[in-house]
């Protein structure tokens, strides 16, 4: 496995090998699926839409609907105006969504298609809405596409009226429906009135009922997106993902925001809970304090199995930072932190975490790839890999256990239903990590060393 990867690291300036990111439009598609009765629309050639739908379906094991402008060579030369107009007409006629969320691709961006103008020229049925965002595939990553689509919705829809709605807006970051459900559960426990945006729970984790619903129950509604402009405050979870839309909303509707890390692990969940409690002016309920206490209890009970174990974490910036914070709380060493997303804030924040917990010899890199991560590991190995499916080759090549977390996970089931966030999410994560390390210990043990009790 990966036999051609040399141990010796040479600097690469142009060749990306085994990437740890994908392109903007898939993130935009995911964000748009978190809006109720929304049809994501890819303004590019058919392949983009097909690839993105495929990846979302593979990660969530759910239908991922989206349409395409189906560019031909002709439209690439003369512009895709008529394609997108024809698309919108057909989509409303045949699929009847309430809103179409258009995102661009490298193709339509390179030829400079002006979606603002196209949308103004469209004949949109009464009561229906078309919004757009620019998601050039040659900048940033799928994470940028996710928040750019959020910005698109906000720009088109959010409005500040004279009256505040008494709610807090929660931007959950690029996380799974299972995480969004857990964030909402915590908010409800704290009796917080909130709007979550986007919200893919109830969409990409819809139940099996025997009836296919093209637009399942979940998703942020259009009135809710409008009403974001009247929120008292926004909680932007995951600074590198949710800050941009929070800033956009601040600019447009003067809604203040607090930026917090993704609530992964103890302290980040504490901060989320405190922020909600502060907002709702409700004491943290005993039920939740009990959960927290259980988590700490488990961390103590099991610590000998993971203390000082080294781990390589890779994936999306806020997810990696969140996971890193939790493994540090567990007493582990996050030796390598890597994201493919080009954003130097990631490195700064990672280094701040290393410093906070007083760990040395750890390394963080943004705009990296899995080929390089593998080379680091070849030179100085780790006990555990924590990240997305694409690290499984490294896990196999170097015989290192892998715990899956993040996006995309295209080779396992259930993960998208279960949270990584909150105290419950941390318990689950701890169980996954601890089991991986302990299974490994059992597997490697000589017969005379196999422990019945651990």
């Amino acid at each position, binding site marked *: 496995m990966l036999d051609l990867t040399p141990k010796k690291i040479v600097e690469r300036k142009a060749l990306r090998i085994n990437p740890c990111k994908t392109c903007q439009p898939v993130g935009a598609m995911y964000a748009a699926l978190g809006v109720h009765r929304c049809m994501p629309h890819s303004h590019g050639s058919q392949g983009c839409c097909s690839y993105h739908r495929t990846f979302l379906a593979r990660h969530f094991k759910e239908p991922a609907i989206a349409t395409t402008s*189906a560019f031909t060579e002709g439209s690439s030369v003369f512009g895709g105006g008529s394609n997108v107009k024809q698309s919108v007409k057909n989509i409303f006629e045949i699929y009847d969504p309430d809103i179409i969320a258009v995102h661009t691709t490298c193709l339509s961006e390179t030829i400079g298609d002006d979606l603002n103008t196209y949308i103004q020229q469209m004949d949109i049925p009464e009561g229906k809405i078309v919004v757009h965002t620019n998601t050039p595939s040659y900048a940033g990553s799928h994470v940028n596409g996710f928040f750019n689509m959020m910005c698109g919705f906000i720009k088109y829809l959010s409005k500040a009226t004279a009256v505040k709605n008494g709610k807090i807006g929660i931007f959950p970051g690029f996380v799974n429906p299972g995480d969004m459900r857990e964030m909402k559960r915590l908010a409800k426990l704290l009796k917080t009135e909130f709007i979550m945006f986007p919200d893919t729970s109830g969409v990409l984790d819809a139940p099996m009922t025997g009836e296919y619903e093209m637009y399942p129950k979940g998703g942020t509604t259009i009135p809710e997106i409008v009403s974001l402009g009247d929120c008292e405050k926004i909680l932007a979870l995951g600074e590198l993902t949710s800050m941009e839309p929070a800033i956009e909303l601040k600019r447009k509707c003067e809604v203040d925001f607090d930026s917090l890390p993704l609530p992964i692990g103890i302290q980040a969940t504490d901060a989320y809970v405190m922020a909600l409690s502060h907002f709702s002016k409700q004491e943290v309920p005993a039920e939740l304090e009990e959960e927290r206490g259980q988590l700490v209890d488990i961390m103590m009970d099991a610590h000998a199995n993971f203390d000082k174990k080294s781990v390589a974490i890779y994936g999306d910036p806020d997810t990696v930072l969140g996971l890193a914070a939790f493994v540090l709380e567990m007493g582990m060493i996050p030796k390598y932190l890597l994201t493919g997303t080009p954003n130097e804030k990631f490195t700064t924040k990672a280094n701040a975490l290393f410093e906070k917990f007083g760990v040395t010899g750890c390394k963080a890199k943004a705009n990296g790839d899995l080929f390089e991560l593998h080379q680091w590991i070849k030179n100085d190995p780790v006990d555990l890999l924590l990240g997305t499916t694409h690290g499984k080759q490294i896990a196999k090549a170097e015989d290192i256990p892998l715990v899956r977390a993040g996006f995309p996970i295209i080779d396992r089931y259930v993960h998208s239903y279960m949270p990584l966030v909150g105290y419950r999410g941390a318990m689950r994560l701890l169980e996954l990590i601890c089991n991986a390390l302990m299974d490994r210990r059992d597997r490697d043990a000589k017969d005379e060393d196999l422990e019945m009790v651990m």
Partner: protein
Amino acid sequence: MNEREKILDKYSAKVFKNRKDHVVQFDNAGMPKEIAANSRSIPGLMSNRGCCYAGCKGVVLGPLRDVVVLTHGPIGCGFYSWGTRRNKAKSEDGKSYIQYCFSTDMQEADIVFGGEKKLRQAIEEAMELFNPSCIMICSTCPVGLIGDDINAVATWAEEKFNIKCVAYSCEGYKGVSQSAGHHIANNGLMKSIIGTGDAPLTKKYSVNILGEYNIGGDGWETERLLEKIGYEVVSIFTGDGSYEAIKNAHTANLNLVQCHRSINYIAEMMKTKYGIDWFKVNFIGIDETIRSLREIAAYFNDPTLIANTEKVIAEELEEVAEAREYYKEKLHGKTAAVFVGGSRSHHYQMLLADFGMKTIIAGYEFAHRDDYEGLEVRPNVKVDADSRNIEELTITPDDKYYHLSIDKERFDALKLTTELEYYKGMFKDMGDGTIAIDDFNHYETEKLLELFHPNIFYSGIKDKYMIQKSGTPSRQMHSYDYSGPYAGFKGAIKFASDTYMSLFTPAWQYITPPWRMQPTLEGKVGGAD
């Protein structure tokens, strides 16, 4: 209204005018039908089609294990086509690039100022790291728009590093589907690779397997059968294939075409250039595998070979006989819908028939009319602007390598009774109220489920979960739901066992909760005691 009319009923006049020719329903009389195919998808209809890049890099070139296939473009295209098609490969010397994804990961500056410099640099880095003997460059959409001269870069790389470097301008917007990419990939292999090697043959009867991508190991199973009979498999296009083998493809006696759509260009061009005849074979399905093996043996007409073929058929049949009867009994009478790939919607109908299952719905994403109606329709196919933009190579007989394996008299005789240089298309095996749809979309799929209620729906990941959610078992036939191989005798049994599993997995019984069937609340009316 028949089912076809019901499907089309919802469409506006403009959409109806287009779609009506892509939907064909067969009557009992078995009248020949015409279908519209290989034309533009309607924007907004939620087609399942991919793009030219997906056909070129994803399908045809991606499986070549000893080639650094370098995607020139932003990261997405390379990322999505990394390890996702199940084109298995293994190499004796460990030199396999299949596990790797190579991309120039173009950034905004590359789009503005041109990406050639970065492409050159990426090739330099690939050479330093891996020293491959062959690099193939695949373009994505923006590359063609900004005008990077990838051919010039390929020439530069060949001169500088003394390697083979082939550039493919397979921008996603070209053509109307993956199909354009297949053609572009075929052209590149024909122009630059086939015929450049001179490895000697080791056996008397040799073949190439064309259009076999080794999904789930199908190619290996096919190769096993052919080698067991005594053939030499010179090269496979391109599942577990290699640059080193394909160089010598022109030395083979016969080409076997499995996937007609994606590779027929090479089969026909090799006939013109090297005189190599081709058969449309099908190793999906037990009866079809037997037919294919017998036709190949008949072509070479060697009594030993024919005897070996019958011996292998008997052996393989005996091995699966019991399981075949078992699954036939379980699956007999079940109805199916099949939407897959290049010839697979046809192939799988034959396999389903092995077990007494009936295909009532079939279609393709990117087929041409000949895939549906048979090769005889070719002269009547109108070439539109989108297809005209894909280069048609002018091929002439090769002075050195042109050779005929059989004389014209035998060729003509065989052509009458076999699929020698002929593909009959899918329609001839359909009829009786069944329906065929070209470039099917999400809405039509929903309508098909509603109108036909197939017992199982074989398609891809994009519609799998929608179909399953609506209560119909669905299996992916692009990836075999990570199972396989499905080729040959044993593969047919594997397929049947997977089908049986998905039809009867216990979860189907639990969809409706018990409280929906019987009341759980007990109470009394009017507050009485």
